[in-house]
C-alpha cells in the first residue's frame, strides 16, 4: 500500500472516531436536555453553568484535573480487566479496600520521612485492592463462578465492612461524620503549585500509571498475552498462551489499580477515610474505560471529561437549580451508546463514499 493510501486510511479512521464520539455526546446532551425540560428549566443555561463550573477558571481546571486522578486509575483498572474479557465489576469494592488500607498506614505509622510514608500508603492501597479481587478470580478459575455477580457482592461487603470499621474500631472521636483519624502530614500527597486549587501529585502519579499500563499492554509479552486472551481465549489457548494465568493477572492488576485509586484520593484529597466517601469512582472507571475503548491512553481524556462533568454538576445545581443527578443520566446515556456498532458501521460506509480509496 502506498503511503498516500495509508495516510488516507488513517484520516478516515480518525474522522470516524471523532464523528462517532461527537454523535454519542450529542445524543447524551439531547437526552439530558429533555430531562432538564421536565423540571421546567432551560437546558442551555444549565449546560453553560456546567461548563463554567468545570473549566471556567484556572483554579476550576486544576480542580477538575485533581478529580480526574482517581478516575484515571479506576479507568485503567477497568481497561486492564475488560481488555482481557474479565468482567471485574468490583472496582468500587477494591477502591474502598485500598483506600482504607492507605488511610490505616497513613494514621497509624508515625515519624517517617514523607516520601517513604507516602510510598507505603500507596503500596498498601495497591496491595489490598489487588487482594480484594483475589476471591472472585480464584472462584472463577476453580469452579467457574461467574465473576460479574461475585465481584458485585464483594463491593457491598467492602463498603459495609469499611463502614463498620470506621463506625466502631477505628472511629475518630473528634470526627463529625463516621471516619478515621486524619492522616499524618507526612502521608499527604504534596500539592502542585497552583494557588487555591487542591491539585496534587496524585494527578502525575495517575498519568505515569496510564503510560505504564500502555507500555505493559502493548510493549510486553505478558501484556500481549492478556490482550490476546481477551480477544479470543480459545485462539490464545491453542497458540500456547497461559489463559488462566492471564485471567488471574488481569483481575489482580485491575484490583490493584483500583486500590491505588482509593489510596490516591484518600492521601491526596480527603486526608482521612470517611465511610461511603466514593461517589461511584469505581463505577465511573468502567464507563471511562468503555468510552476510551479500553485503551490506557484514551482513559486520560475520558477521565478528565468525566471529572469535568462531576465538578460542573454541583455548579449547575447551585446556579440554575437543575439537580446534579442529571449528570448521572447523561453518563448513563453515554454508556448506552458507547458500544453501539451501528454508528461506526454507518459512518464507515459514509466516509468511504465521500473519500473513495485509491486502491
Amino acid at each position, binding site marked *: 500500500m502506498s503511503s498516500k493510501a495509508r495516510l488516507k486510511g488513517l484520516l478516515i479512521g480518525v474522522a470516524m472516531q471523532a464523528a462517532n464520539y461527537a454523535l454519542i455526546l450529542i445524543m447524551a446532551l439531547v437526552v439530558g436536555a429533555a*430531562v432538564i425540560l*421536565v*423540571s421546567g428549566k432551560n437546558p442551555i443555561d444549565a449546560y453553560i453553568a456546567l461548563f463554567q463550573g468545570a473549566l471556567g477558571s484556572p483554579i476550576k481546571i486544576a480542580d477538575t484535573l485533581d478529580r480526574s486522578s482517581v478516575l484515571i486509575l479506576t479507568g485503567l483498572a477497568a481497561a486492564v480487566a*475488560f*481488555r482481557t*474479557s474479565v*468482567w471485574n*465489576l468490583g472496582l468500587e469494592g477494591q477502591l474502598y479496600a485500598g483506600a482504607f488500607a492507605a488511610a490505616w498506614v497513613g494514621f497509624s505509622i508515625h515519624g517517617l520521612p514523607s516520601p517513604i510514608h507516602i510510598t507505603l500508603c500507596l503500596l498498601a492501597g495497591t496491595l489490598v485492592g489487588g487482594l480484594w479481587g483475589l476471591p472472585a478470580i480464584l*472462584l472463577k478459575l476453580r*469452579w*467457574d*463462578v*461467574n465473576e*460479574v*455477580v*461475585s465481584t*458485585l*457482592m*464483594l463491593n*457491598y*461487603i467492602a463498603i*459495609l*465492612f469499611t*463502614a*463498620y470499621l470506621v*463506625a*466502631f474500631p477505628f472511629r475518630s472521636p473528634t470526627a463529625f461524620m463516621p471516619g478515621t483519624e486524619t492522616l499524618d502530614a507526612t502521608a499527604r500527597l504534596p500539592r502542585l503549585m497552583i494557588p487555591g486549587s487542591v491539585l496534587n501529585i496524585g494527578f502525575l502519579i495517575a498519568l505515569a500509571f496510564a503510560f505504564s499500563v500502555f507500555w505493559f499492554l502493548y510493549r510486553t509479552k505478558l501484556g500481549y498475552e492478556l490482550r490476546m486472551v*481477551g*480477544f*479470543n*481465549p*480459545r485462539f490464545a489457548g491453542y497458540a500456547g498462551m497461559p489463559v488462566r494465568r492471564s485471567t488471574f493477572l488481569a483481575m489482580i492488576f485491575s484490583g490493584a489499580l483500583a486500590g491505588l485509586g482509593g489510596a490516591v484520593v484518600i492521601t491526596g484529597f480527603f486526608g482521612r477515610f470517611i465511610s461511603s466517601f466514593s461517589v461511584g469512582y469505581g*463505577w465511573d472507571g*468502567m*464507563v471511562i474505560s*468503555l468510552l476510551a*475503548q*479500553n485503551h490506557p491512553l484514551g482513559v486520560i481524556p475520558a477521565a478528565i471529561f468525566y471529572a469535568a462533568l462531576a465538578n460542573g454538576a454541583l455548579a449547575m445545581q447551585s446556579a440554575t437549580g437543575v*439537580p446534579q*443527578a*442529571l*449528570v*448521572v*443520566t*447523561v*453518563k*448513563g*446515556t453515554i*454508556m*448506552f*451508546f*458507547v*458500544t*453501539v*456498532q*451501528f*454508528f461506526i458501521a454507518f459512518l464507515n460506509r459514509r466516509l468511504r463514499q465521500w473519500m473513495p480509496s485509491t486502491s
Partner: protein
Amino acid sequence: MDAFDILGRIITLTLFAATLRMATPVLFATLGGICSAHSGVFNVGLEGLLDLGAFFAVVGSVALGSPWAGLALAIVSCLVASLVFAVIHLELKAHEIIVGLALNLFAYGLTNYLLVAILKATGFYKSPLIIGFQPVNIPLIERIPIVGELLSGHSPLVYLGFLGVALAYVGLFKTPWGFHLRAVGENADAAEAVGINTRLMKYAGMLLSGALCGFGGAFLSLAYLNMFSENMTAGRGWLALAAVNFGEGRPLKSLVACLIFGFADALAIRLQQFGLPSQLVLMLPYVATLVVLILSAIQRSRKAEQVLESPPPAAKPVEV
C-alpha cells in the same frame, strides 16, 4: 439467658413470615431474569429496572391515589426502559452487559433527578399521599394456628410473586410458546431455521423481564415500605441475577435461592434489633449470595466433570 433461649427469640414465626416478604422483590426480578435468560439475553439491568419500578410506583400512587395505579405505572415505566434496552442491544448491536450497566446508571440518575425535580425531595420521599397495598387475610387459612400466621396477612404482591413462579414454570416449560423462547436462547440459528422469529422472542423475553421488575419495584415502595429512597433496591437486582444463575433457568430452583436471600435479609433486620452493628449484619444477604453462587458452581462443575464435557464456553470478548 442461654444460647437456646437467644436463638428461640431470634428464630420466630415472624422471622419466617418476613422471609417470604423479603424474598418477594428478589423473586419478581429473578423471574424477569429467567425470562430474558431463556431468550438468550443476560440481563444485568435488573437492578435499574427495580429502581425505576419503585420510583414510578410511588409517583403513580400519589398521582392517582391507588396502589394498583402505582403498580401499573411501575410496569409501564419498566416496559419502556426494557424496550429501550432491547432496541439498543438487538437493533444497534451494543454489548448486552454494557447496555445493562448503562440502564442501571441511567435509572439511578433519573430516579434521583426526578425525586428532586418532581417530588421536591432529596434522598427519600415519604408522605401520607403514598397509598400502599393493604395486607390480605386469607379466609380459611388465617384460622389455622401456625400456617395462618406464616401465610396469611401479606401484601397481595407476595401471593402474586409465588403465583408467578408457577406461571413461569408452566409458561416456559409446558407451552409451545415457552418452548420457542427457550429454543431461541439455546440456539438462535437453529430456532431461526425452523421458522421461529428469534428477534420477536428476544423482545418478548426482555419485555417480560421489564414487566416483572415493575412488580418487584412496586412491592419495595408500596408494600414493603411506603416510601421511595435512593438506593432502596440495595442490590436486590444483583441478588436476583445470582438466583437466576443458581436456578439455571428453572423457576422452582431459583425460588430456593430467593428464599435464602429473603431469610438472610429478614435475619439481618432481626439481628439489628438485638444491638449487633448494622453494617456487619447487613452484609448477610451478600455473603449468602456468594455462598449460594459458589455452591451452585461447584455442583455444576461436578456435573460437567461427570459427563466429561469440553470446558465451558469462553466469555464473549468485549468489542467496543
